[in-house]
């Protein structure tokens, strides 16, 4: 069953990819959708078995040896414990909904089979990532989803912007992978293995180990964890390595929903949660994670306030929510992070697919300045977007409310400088989240229609094949938080996780328990922030539409800086991209051709040529030249004989 749940998408991808022309577009759609839907059902069954089957239910299916080199032995195997089972459900359910949705969304595209194949390939790689039993297999899935993401961002490969975005995504992720790979090597040096069981069993005994890294004697686990975190930063678009995510919106919208919102970008969160037994012994590393996550949540939210592309607003919102998950991990509340990961997957996929439905209705328009006044025309999509935004803003009884509150509470309950920083950043971000969510809703659906009449005439509700997945996801966005709360972070937490996540307990028990004893105002703070954000958005965009312009004019410089995404792209371009090209060219022309060839073969050849030229000049053929040389020679010889004696 495990094998079917994981390899069915691969089979679908293979059939659709290589025999797409044979079975036709319809055939490819059926094969891939069926594969992922069956996988989704199987993973729900697995989830129930493993999550509620007690500690013995977790299992590992070993397939065969992958790499065998001395003491470095790695196998292909599928590890199914609660943490994996949660991810299986999230990945397969969202993926199957996106598959079905794509049938409708991509119905006019000539390359439907290829699209479905890529989606299924992505799903398989993501499943390999979450079922990995060792770091190297995780790296396989990790890079694999990177490739699938590259292919999907670049799906419309004739567009230059898509080419740019896909390359950027792959390369920025590679920078993260550079850290991840070094992290794996460090882990191997510390533990002598890269298999999770072996690592986790030794983690406590290595708590004080040190090793030499780049000439410094450093705390081994902190160093390894930070290297791994660099990998997580790349994949999960944390501040510094985030520049690829907004550009990745060049891909078709279902891709944004699946890869750049619900699943792949959360891989970093999953990896850190998976490595919780090691991170627990690297408090410094956790502090770094907290600060960076909090900063990401805040910065991304500020950028989200200023953007006009409907997908980019949601993309920055995703980045911001990922920041929440990271600082939750930073304060040691891994279950809270995974809880938010799960609820976020539902409501963010819902928002993206809803946005896709809007774009579909608006004849591929993505700029919110050209929308407005369409809520009556597409009421289904409108309702779905409301549900998604309510969940995102953390309004009570929607999914996001439970998970976001939990995260802010644990941040407060940490009682450390990093925790407080994260808490206040999180509250500020919650306010901004609500604001830009309603800014999006109002600009897109309300007010006067700003699109051309031709576009407006075409506005239509999406077909059922697109709406049904939205409804399924909205059920998740409505109930996932309420239903799953007791298992993920509530009373049944320990039985549910069954050791798949390790949290060291302090004086007052684990951090999650401590979060239940925070002061009374703390749980209300995010709600107040959210509601005021919504109210402010109504004031700005519904009741007094002149305000945003006036506001922007007052803070022109600041707005420009934020609007241009804090100039990260310009900075990296000037720091890395252009110098690398210049350096490459200089090394080629200067060193390779100039110095090495000049002194080496070309130089040797030139010297030989000059010598032979000189010697050939001596052989002039004139008798008097030779006679002259002979006379000189005789004189010199006699002179030497006379003087030497």
């Amino acid at each position, binding site marked *: 069953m495990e094998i079917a749940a994981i390899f069915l998408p691969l089979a679908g991808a293979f059939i659709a990819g290589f025999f797409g022309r044979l079975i036709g577009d319809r055939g490819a759609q059926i094969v891939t959708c069926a594969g992922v839907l069956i996988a989704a059902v199987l993973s729900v069954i697995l989830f129930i078995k493993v999550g509620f089957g007690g500690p013995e239910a977790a299992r590992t299916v070993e397939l065969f040896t992958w790499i065998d080199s001395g003491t470095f032995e790695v196998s292909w195997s599928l590890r199914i414990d609660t943490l994996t089972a949660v991810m299986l459900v999230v990945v397969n359910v969202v993926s199957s909904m996106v598959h079905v949705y794509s049938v409708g969304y991509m119905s006019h595209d000539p390359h439907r089979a290829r699209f479905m194949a890529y989606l299924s390939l992505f799903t398989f790689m993501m499943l390999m990532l979450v079922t990995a039993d060792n770091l190297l297999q995780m790296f396989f899935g990790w890079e*694999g989803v990177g490739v699938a993401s590259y292919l999907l961002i670049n799906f419309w490969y004739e567009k230059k912007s898509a080419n740019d975005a896909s390359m950027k995504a792959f390369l920025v992720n590679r920078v993260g992978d550079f850290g991840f790979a070094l992290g794996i090597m460090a882990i191997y040096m510390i533990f002598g293995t890269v298999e999770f069981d072996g690592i986790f069993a030794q983690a406590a005994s290595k708590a004080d180990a040190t090793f030499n890294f780049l000439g410094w004697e450093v705390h081994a686990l902190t160093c390894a964890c930070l290297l791994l975190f660099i990998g997580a930063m790349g994949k999960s678009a944390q501040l510094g390595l985030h520049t690829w995510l907004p550009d990745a919106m060049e891909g078709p919208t279902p891709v944004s929903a699946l890869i750049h919102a619900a699943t792949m970008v959360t891989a970093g969160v999953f990896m850190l949660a998976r490595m919780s037994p090691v991170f627990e012994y690297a408090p410094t590393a956790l502090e770094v994670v907290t600060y960076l996550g909090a900063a990401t949540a805040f910065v991304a939210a500020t950028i989200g306030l200023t953007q006009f592309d409907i997908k980019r607003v949601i993309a920055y919102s995703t980045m911001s929510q990922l920041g929440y998950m990271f600082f939750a991990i930073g304060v040691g509340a891994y279950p809270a992070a995974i809880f938010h990961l799960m609820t976020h997957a539902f409501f963010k996929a819902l928002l993206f697919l809803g946005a896709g439905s809007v774009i579909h209705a608006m004849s591929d328009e993505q700029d919110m300045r050209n929308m407005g006044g369409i809520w009556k025309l597409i009421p289904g999509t409108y309702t779905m977007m409301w549900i998604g935004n309510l969940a995102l803003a953390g309004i009570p009884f929607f999914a996001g409310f439970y998970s976001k509150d939990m995260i802010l509470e644990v941040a407060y309950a940490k009682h450390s400088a990093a925790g407080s920083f994260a808490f206040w950043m999180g509250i500020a971000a919650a306010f901004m989240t609500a604001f830009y969510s309603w800014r999006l809703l109002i600009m897109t659906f309300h007010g006067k229609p700003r699109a051309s009449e031709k576009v407006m005439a075409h506005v239509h509700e999406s077909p059922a094949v697109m709406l049904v997945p939205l409804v399924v996801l909205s059920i998740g966005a409505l109930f996932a938080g309420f239903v799953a709360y007791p298992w993920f972070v509530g009373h049944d937490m320990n039985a549910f996780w069954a050791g798949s996540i390790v949290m060291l307990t302090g004086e007052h028990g684990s951090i999650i328990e401590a979060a239940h004893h925070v002061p009374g105002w703390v749980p209300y703070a995010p709600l107040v922030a959210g509601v005021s954000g919504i109210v402010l958005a109504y004031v700005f965009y519904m009741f007094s539409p002149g305000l945003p312009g006036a506001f922007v004019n007052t803070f022109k410089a600041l707005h420009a800086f934020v609007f241009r995404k804090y100039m990260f792209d310009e900075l990296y371009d000037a720091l890395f991209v252009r110098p690398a090209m210049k350096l490459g060219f200089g090394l080629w022309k200067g060193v390779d051709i100039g110095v090495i060839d000049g002194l080496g073969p070309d130089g040797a050849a030139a010297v030989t040529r000059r010598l032979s030229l000189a010697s050939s000049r001596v052989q002039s053929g004139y008798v008097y030249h030779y006679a002259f040389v002979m006379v000189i020679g005789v004189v010199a010889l006699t002179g030497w004989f006379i003087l030497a004696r």
Partner: protein
Amino acid sequence: MADVPILSLTTFLPLVGALFILLIRGEQEAVARNAKSVALWTSVITFVVSLFILTGFDPSNPGFQMVEEVAWLPAFNIAYIKGVDGISIWFVLASTLLTPICVLASWDAVEKRVKEFMIALLVLETMLIGMFTALDFVLFYLFFEGVLLPMFLLIGVWGGPNRVYAAYKFFIYTFIGSVLMLLAILAMYLTAGTMDMRVMVDYPFAGNMQIWLWLAFFIAFAVKTPIWPAHTWLPFAHVEAPTAGSVMLAGVMLKMGGYGLIRANVQMLPEASFFFQDLVFFMSIAAIIYTSLVALAQSDMKKMIAYSSVAHMGYVSMGIFAMNQQGLDGAMFQMLSHTFVSAALFLCIGVAYNRLHTREMAAYGGMAKNMPRYAVVFAIFMFASVGLPGTSGFVGEFLTMLGVFQVSTWYGMLSATGLVLGAAYMLLLFRKLFFGKLDKPEVKAMQDLSPREVAFFAPLVAIVIIMGVYPASFQNVYNPTVEKILADHQVSLKAAGLIEAVAPATAELRTETPATQPASEN
């Protein structure tokens, strides 16, 4: 099969085919056709015969197998000795597999002097196999030099417009190296009194003599590998060489360098290898970073792949001198992987070149639309070259980095920058060829892969993926040999007083490493 001299048979079978081709007379077209089919059949039969070497090979035996020994010049202790061990066997098979592929790839691409071309290709195969199986230094040297001649002709006769310069550059570089190697071999002969390489491996050469011998060998092999800064002949040779020449050059000839480094430098001169470790690391890292950056600046696609070869071979030299299991294993694997990946990439470039007769990337664009099969094949090898897990490229790259990381975190970290740089230029290349609008009429007119082209790409795709998913099947063949080499190496160093005790395979750590045990928590 025990009494059939299988190694000699494999070595000289191509030569027999070449003789047959030599005898072909008649109409020019008929000659060309017959020469091609004789060459194809010969190389395929040779490949089949070479498979018996693999089936007869006992992986658990780390020593030389299928040894053939015939007295040659007994007065001088020089003999005809052949044999394979875990290190050399894969290179023999790589040579026999790539030759028929090269014949197929040159089917239409070579139009003039087809007969001579095929003869050169088959002679090259004989020389390569002969070199990898030789166990007597005289024999080794003869074959090692013998490889130069057909390759010199392949570049100089069938090459591009600047072929003469490239051929001479190639010749000068490799010849200087060879002369130094000859001197070193003579010096070793005078000391040890034999040319038998099996004896040399165990012979304890004096410490300071090792230094000089090591340098002489190293220069010879560094040129072949090539190791920075002795690499500048390679881009020219590749650019001018015909596709088949590039494939053999990148696929097998470069591996002569790596093979020689293991066989002569590491096995015979352990103390000097220990002494020069940092030098090799430095040069390898320079190769990885420097040539990757240079590759980024290229506009000629063949030159870009040529520079990427230098970068990939940097991992090999670095892994070899890490002197631990992962490093040497990884170096072996990286060489094998590079054999197929670089060969395939040059074949891929040949596909485009045969259609449009230019290597400028800017002349292409948007080919994903009219050549989807080609795009898929190219993409697979691009990702293999980038070192994507699941392809052969990852295993070697990762293991060598792991090996080096254990020796020095600095070098390990610097080599890992190749992950980013390598991806940068390959993605750039792929993008320029396949993405964007298909607006150039001559590119639009290009046909997708023909069945013949699919026929020679298919086995390469299969190998690259099998090597990536189940590398253990390849590693098992050479692992015992690698283990023995490392154990011998440790013993020699200990005897020379360079290290205190035989170190364990894993790196040092301040705390004790308890045996791994299954976790009790889950």
